[in-house]
């Protein structure tokens, strides 16, 4: 039997919607919300989504399940009054330096203030001004802009199982705080930036490095060399009206040339190197007779930090291969070393990433050689969009351009790194003996693709069945690790990406919901399909590098010892 609700006098059918907010959306009414995210648990704190029932009672639509025959109104004088007052009070306790705010134009509080036409705020802000926490390389916390919706707290604990921040104190003194009010950099924060991605205001934003990059670009003695991560190409166009997943790399390269950088390469080359090293490690791990735990991937810096802080004893099972960005960073610095000396220049290595944790990774001591980092600055996709806007580049009108030589050849295996399961698929392409197109196609169907948070797949390697776990989202990784430790699950190889959906869904990308994230991943697979080279080992550049620049230096340039630092 069909179930109906009556919304503003109109019958609306519903099925399995978990709250009346979703049913109301079905009726074509978008109620204002601050604290509601369908991926997170329901909190019901902001009270913006209130509706009136048939007896005049006021209920929060996000936290009320629909019932057959239920009658509610979304537009009454009472609701109008309440919503406006709530918004006015939120604004009263909020710093209102909108024009210079990082979130200017993207702020939900600003958007709702516009929607409601709040003409002025009658109340004084009685909150003391609290210090801004800039200790993290990835995020900036400004408690003066916090509206206590708790989205950051829930994404950090529910999705990521990190719990670096939570509510502290109570009543008018309540705030989002780290344990004991420590600097965020001194906590178990993994720098994944998911808190900044869900924050409706400017209370948590992504740290900007574009100012330093501008300085390097403007300095004639500096050679600015850029690498672009795979996931960036399928998201950055969204800021210019392109569909999520549309590959706009050519336009991005053209824009960056206009920006004034000296050379532009693709991080997929680094990903090809990663696959060469990591698959070698995998084959070695498979040889180990009494190896208890799988080989874990090491490309994701958020995941590395998660293991370091929560599973330090598992660090020795994590691949020692550097991430594609760091491998390529080392190659870039080495490649230009002689030329720099001759020309009296200094190479500044910049990485454009979908990721905030990469900012943290680039700053780690392990990735500095003689005190100099292999990657000097990391810019997120969103930062690059801002930089292009600063100089007024019309991204959509530019003719696509190609990468610079010599690092312009990469495989499809490198490109798919940006989606969850991509690293695994690339590794499987490398290790299986059958290199026929049919075998390549078969790999697609062992269960590596798709946006599910946990995937398990299996393939035959010689006589042996190799069991692989693929997880994205650190909460899923945490659950899987517990199962592995308890012996409930056994894997030979486990790929982990900290952000749900993989790098395409990184916190450095333009804001996206699950549909856009899926479209971006599909975009990467489409890009892979269009490339002639499918496997990392088939990339002629890889062979050249191993025979020349990397010769006898593989360990120094391509591997990292995290353990050493923690000793």
């Amino acid at each position, binding site marked *: 039997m069909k179930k109906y609700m009556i919304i503003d006098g109109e019958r609306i059918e519903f099925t399995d919607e978990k709250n009346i907010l979703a049913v109301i959306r079905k009726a074509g009414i978008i109620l204002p919300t601050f604290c509601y995210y369908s991926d997170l648990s329901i909190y019901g704190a902001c009270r913006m989504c209130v509706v009136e029932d048939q007896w005049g009672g006021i209920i929060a639509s996000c936290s009320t399940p629909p019932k057959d025959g239920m009658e509610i109104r979304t537009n009454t004088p009472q609701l109008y009054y309440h919503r406006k007052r709530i918004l006015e009070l939120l604004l009263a306790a909020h710093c209102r330096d909108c024009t210079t705010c990082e979130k200017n134009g993207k702020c939900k509080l600003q958007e709702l203030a516009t929607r409601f036409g709040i003409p002025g705020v009658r109340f004084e802000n009685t909150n003391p001004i609290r210090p801004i926490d800039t200790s993290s390389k990835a995020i900036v916390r400004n408690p003066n802009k916090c509206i206590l919706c708790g989205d950051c707290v829930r994404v950090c604990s529910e999705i990521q199982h990190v719990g670096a921040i*939570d*509510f*502290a104190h*109570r009543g008018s003194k309540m705030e989002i*705080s780290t*344990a*004991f009010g420590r600097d965020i950099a001194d*906590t*178990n924060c993994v720098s994944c930036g998911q808190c900044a991605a869900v924050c409706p205001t400017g209370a948590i934003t992504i740290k900007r490095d574009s100012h330093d990059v501008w300085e390097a670009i403007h300095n004639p003695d500096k050679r600015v060399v850029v690498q672009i991560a795979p996931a960036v190409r399928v998201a950055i166009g969204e800021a210019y009206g392109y569909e999520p997943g549309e590959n706009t790399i050519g336009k991005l390269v053209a824009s960056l040339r206009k920006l004034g950088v000296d050379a532009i390469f693709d991080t997929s080359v680094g990903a090809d190197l990663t696959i060469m090293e990591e698959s070698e490690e995998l084959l070695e791990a498979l040889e180990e007779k009494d190896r208890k735990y799988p080989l874990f991937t090491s490309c994701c810096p958020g995941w590395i930090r998660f293991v370091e802080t929560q599973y330090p004893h598992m660090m020795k099972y994590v691949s020692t291969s550097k991430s594609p960005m760091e491998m390529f960073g080392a190659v870039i610095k080495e490649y230009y070393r002689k030329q720099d000396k001759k020309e009296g220049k200094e190479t500044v290595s910049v990485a454009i990433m979908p990721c905030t944790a990469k900012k943290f990774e680039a700053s780690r001591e392990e990735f500095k050689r003689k005190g100099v980092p292999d990657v000097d600055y990391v810019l997120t996709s969103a930062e690059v969009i801002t930089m292009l806007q600063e100089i007024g580049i019309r991204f959509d009108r530019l003719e696509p351009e190609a990468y610079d030589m010599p690092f312009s050849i990469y495989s499809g295996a490198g490109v798919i790194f940006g989606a969850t399961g991509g690293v695994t698929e690339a590794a499987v392409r490398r290790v299986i003996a059958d290199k026929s197109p049919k075998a390549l196609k078969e790999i697609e169907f062992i269960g590596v693709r798709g946006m599910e948070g946990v995937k398990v797949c299996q393939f035959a390697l010689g006589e042996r069945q190799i069991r692989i776990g693929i997880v994205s989202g650190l909460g899923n990784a945490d659950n899987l690790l517990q199962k592995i430790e308890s012996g409930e699950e056994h894997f030979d190889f486990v790929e982990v990406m900290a952000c749900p959906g993989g790098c395409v869904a990184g916190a450095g990308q333009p804001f996206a919901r699950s549909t856009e994230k899926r479209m971006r991943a599909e975009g990467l697979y489409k890009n892979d399909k269009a490339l002639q080279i499918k496997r990392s080992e088939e990339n002629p550049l890889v062979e050249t590098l191993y025979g020349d620049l990397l010769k006898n230096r593989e360990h120094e340039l391509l591997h990292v010892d995290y353990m050493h630092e923690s000793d």
Partner: protein
Amino acid sequence: MEKKDQKVLDEILESHGCSQTAVIGIMQDIQKVYRYLPEEMLCYMAEKLHLSEAKVYGVATFYENFSLEPKGKYVIKICDGTACHVRQSTAILTEIRSLLGVTEEKPTTEDMMFTVETVSCLGACGLAPVCTVNDVVHPAMTPEKARALIQELKEGLGAGEEAADEN
């Protein structure tokens, strides 16, 4: 954290079955022993209960009764509930604070002997105005009686310490 403190904490955790739902009870027991919640103990209990440190900190700061600051040997609570307030509890509070040289922001004396706090109601309105010293109720207080009480405590303290020295 020292070994003996860890042992105390382990026992407390054990007595609550190391259960996440017993966070408040565990904190109460810690505070009973140490008169406050030491940071390293909260971190240790977070680890044992598989809770984030931030969550444990959130619980500890939510309740007025938990203190993250060490408290003096004598915790003096002056009731400022309605009944006590109308019977001049403020004068008693001012007197005690000035005698001990403490303030609202800095409620504990340098020598860690006294902590002065206000509470909203001790449930002894018939005896108003009241204060408690380590949970012993002192009824119908006046500033004079407060002075005498502090004097008495200070003397007792001296005697107690001498006795301790002799041992």
